């Protein structure tokens, strides 16, 4: 999908105004004629205003019988797509990953950006009738700090203290300055719950729906919350989410009319849906990317920069995009910042597939052994295939590679973060700094390749503390260029996420963080008549 199509979709969903659409399209180089065509098509779609009522039936992959409605435990699409219907965040991720008001109406940084003040929405009530206050916000944030099992614990460790500074105001102080802190609060785990909540089997939130039925790994069923505070969303009477983990079964359910929309369309069949009358494919270019870690410990083989370079030049990234992603993706530059990010280094050249250069560096490295790539489909569907492709690629450069298919069971605990060369993935983060920090920061618990380079660390620290967006951008440019050459990992490709619907679903727009409009389709979407 082109940038302009992307903007059109946002406009149709009411996410950006007409002026912004035309302005951004012109900035992308659209001619006057093209702009008039855009206006005409947009007028044709003007009738597409949200409609109240109806039930949306979703077939969502990425759920398990071990799921729960406790936001701290969410780790996949069903958890978030179901959970977002019932619980709301302080701050939302809007178009272009901008921080947007949620239950926090406004916010500002105190000078120095180590303290942030958040003003909360007034008069919002929970499903049980209780009014949402600063106490609830403090409690909800603290659920993800300190001794906790929350997946947000890592990013929230930057928080020093959360204080109530008014009935509808909280102040958060940080261990170090962070110019983009509101983005941290958009973490999908951090949802507002009433103070003192410990039992999530009877969930209470402020969301557009109340729980009408919940069977982990089977079904999430919600009905409209009559007291919902927002008027610009929550159009559906109800939604019915069926967990369908098998990609073929998901497609079949859409085709046989049993669900209205599905996520994670297999790239192999994406074109089929596009060609099928009545069905629509929604392509979201985002931050999801594949990673092959090259653990860089002292004395380990990947400490050798030339061996890393041999692999960087030896793998065929285009082939990964073409073969494994069916063309729905883009090649990676061995840094984790996606193209859509405002801080993406546009000056960087792609790392071309060059067996001769790889051969040259392999010779220079003096490495004569075998590299074993550990891979499992537990990481992502196609992870083993990708390792197999690289095995073939690198053989041409003279590097012997073994592919070890690891069992899905125990992959995250026994292989990931432990093996020297492991295939895994990263989902996108709201900001570039955050992405670099969690995956490659010194001492970051998930720095899977144990990447360490004093120069990179210095750049990262500078970027984090920088409050000026322009200056931050140039620092991040430099960090990306450094990684591309040096980082102890291969980042071969970014994958688009693919959703599909039967033409009756309104408001399903491309989103950059996760599928189904950043998991908020039940809240922001509607059913057409």
């Amino acid at each position: 999908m082109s940038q302009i199509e992307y903007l059109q979709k946002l406009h149709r969903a009411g996410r950006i105004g007409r002026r912004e659409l035309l302005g951004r399209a012109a900035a992308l180089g659209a001619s006057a004629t093209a702009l008039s065509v855009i206006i005409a098509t947009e007028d044709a779609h003007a009738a597409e205003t949200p409609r109240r009522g109806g039930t949306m039936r979703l077939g969502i992959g990425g759920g398990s019988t071990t799921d729960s409605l406790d936001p701290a435990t969410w780790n996949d699409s069903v958890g978030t797509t179901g959970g977002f219907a019932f619980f709301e965040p302080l701050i939302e991720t809007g178009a272009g990953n901008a921080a947007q008001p949620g239950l926090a109406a406004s916010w500002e940084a105190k000078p120095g950006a180590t303290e942030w003040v958040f003003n909360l929405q007034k008069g919002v009530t929970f499903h049980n009738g209780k009014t949402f206050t600063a106490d609830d916000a403090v409690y909800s944030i603290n659920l993800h700090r300190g001794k906790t099992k929350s997946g947000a614990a890592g990013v929230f460790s930057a928080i020093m203290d959360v204080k109530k500074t008014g009935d509808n105001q909280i102040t958060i102080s940080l261990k170090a300055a962070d110019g983009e802190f509101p983005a941290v609060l958009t973490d999908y785990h951090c949802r507002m719950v009433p103070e003192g909540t410990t039992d999530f089997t009877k969930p209470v939130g402020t969301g557009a729906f109340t729980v009408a039925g919940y069977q982990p790994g089977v079904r999430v069923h919600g009905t409209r919350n009559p007291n919902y505070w927002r008027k610009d969303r929550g159009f559906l009477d109800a939604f019915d989410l069926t967990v369908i983990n098998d990609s073929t079964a998901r497609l079949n359910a859409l085709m046989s009319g049993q669900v209205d929309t599905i996520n994670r369309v297999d790239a192999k069949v994406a074109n089929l849906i596009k060609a099928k009358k009545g069905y629509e494919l929604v392509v979201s270019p985002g931050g999801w990317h594949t990673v092959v870690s090259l653990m860089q410990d002292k004395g380990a083989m990947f400490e050798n920069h030339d061996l890393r370079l041999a692999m960087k030049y030896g793998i065929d990234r285009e082939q990964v995009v073409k073969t494994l992603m069916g063309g729905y993706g883009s090649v990676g530059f061995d840094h984790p910042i996606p193209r859509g990010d405002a801080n993406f280094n546009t000056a960087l050249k792609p790392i071309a597939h060059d067996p001769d250069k790889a051969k040259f560096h392999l010779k220079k490295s003096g490495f004569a052994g075998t590299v074993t790539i550990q891979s499992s489909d537990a990481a992502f569907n196609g992870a083993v295939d990708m390792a197999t492709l690289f095995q073939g690629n690198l053989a041409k450069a003279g590097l012997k590679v073994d592919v070890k298919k690891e069992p899905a069971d125990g992959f995250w605990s026994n292989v990931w973060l432990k093996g020297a060369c492991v295939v895994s993935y990263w989902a996108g983060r709201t900001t570039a700094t955050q992405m670099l920090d969690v995956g490659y920061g010194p001492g970051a618990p998930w720095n899977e390749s144990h990447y360490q380079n004093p120069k990179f660390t210095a750049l990262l620290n500078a970027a984090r503390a920088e409050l000026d967006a322009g200056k931050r951008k140039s620092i991040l440019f430099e960090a990306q260029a450094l990684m591309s050459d040096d980082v102890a990992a291969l980042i071969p490709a970014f994958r688009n996420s693919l959703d599909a619907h039967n033409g009756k679903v309104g408001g399903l727009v491309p989103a950059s963080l996760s599928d189904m409009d950043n998991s908020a389709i039940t809240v922001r979407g509607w059913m057409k008549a």
Partner: protein
Amino acid sequence: MLRLVMLRLAFGAMTVLAASVLIFAGTELLPGDLATAILQNSATPENVAEMRAQLGLDRPAPVRYAEWISHAAQGDLGISLSNQHPVAEELAPRLRNSFFLAAFAACVSVPLAVLLGLLAAIYQNSWYDRAVNFITLLTISVPEYLVGYLLVKYLSVRWGLFPSLANVAPENTLLERLDLTFLPMLTLVLVVVAHMMRMTRASVLNIMASPYIEMAFLKGLTKSRVVVRHAFPNALAPIISVIALNLAYLIVGVVVVEAVFVYPGLGQLLVDAVAKHDLPVVQACGLIFACVFILLNLLADIMAILSNPRLRRAR
């Protein structure tokens, strides 16, 4: 004979107990641990330790076994480690679903298999015999998910006869349930009929070679009468044994079919629980499967005893 049956029952109970030890020990051997499995790639050493303590994983194994088995005997299967729901509550609807699908498939497949097998034995080497043989071979030589996908492709997506999702809900009526589970049932029937039908045919034909059958023929009885009245009752033991194996498969081994049709049965629960190391759920599922299996085998043994006059006396 009664003594023989009682003896088998006692053995069955002992087997259940032994199985429980094996299940508990087996789950202890699983690689990885629940805390990291739940947290996936958002695990840090601190929150892993916190989660382990919260789940009680830091106590010795024998203590946990004793606690588990005594509670299980009273019907308390514990709390799911990953979502804090009582395991029994979570198992009950899925167990009902699994039994429903298994019963549905068994009601169709067992009579069908025995009938087809007997007819094949009676009309041995006829065109009918060959055709049935060929078709059943074809159905078992294709992976079950391919059979399922093909049924969905034609019967559901293309012709719209049956739903492709078997997402049964508690509020469904029996008729709706039968409609929703029709395709998974058909898939399972295609998978299990061949084995039972072929065993029926082989066992009956085996008996047909016995001298007493020749005697029956010499008396001038028709072939169908000989097969049904004389050969079949004597061929029952291996047939029952195979039927019991297949019934157990219908309840325990249908993970793949459940995945294809998104059917909320026990298999999917067990696979998810193994992947997430939700030990209470794995153990409860294992125990239930073990009981079902041991019970079916007991029934098969007892029926084999009843069906064979020579075994009817106690030794």
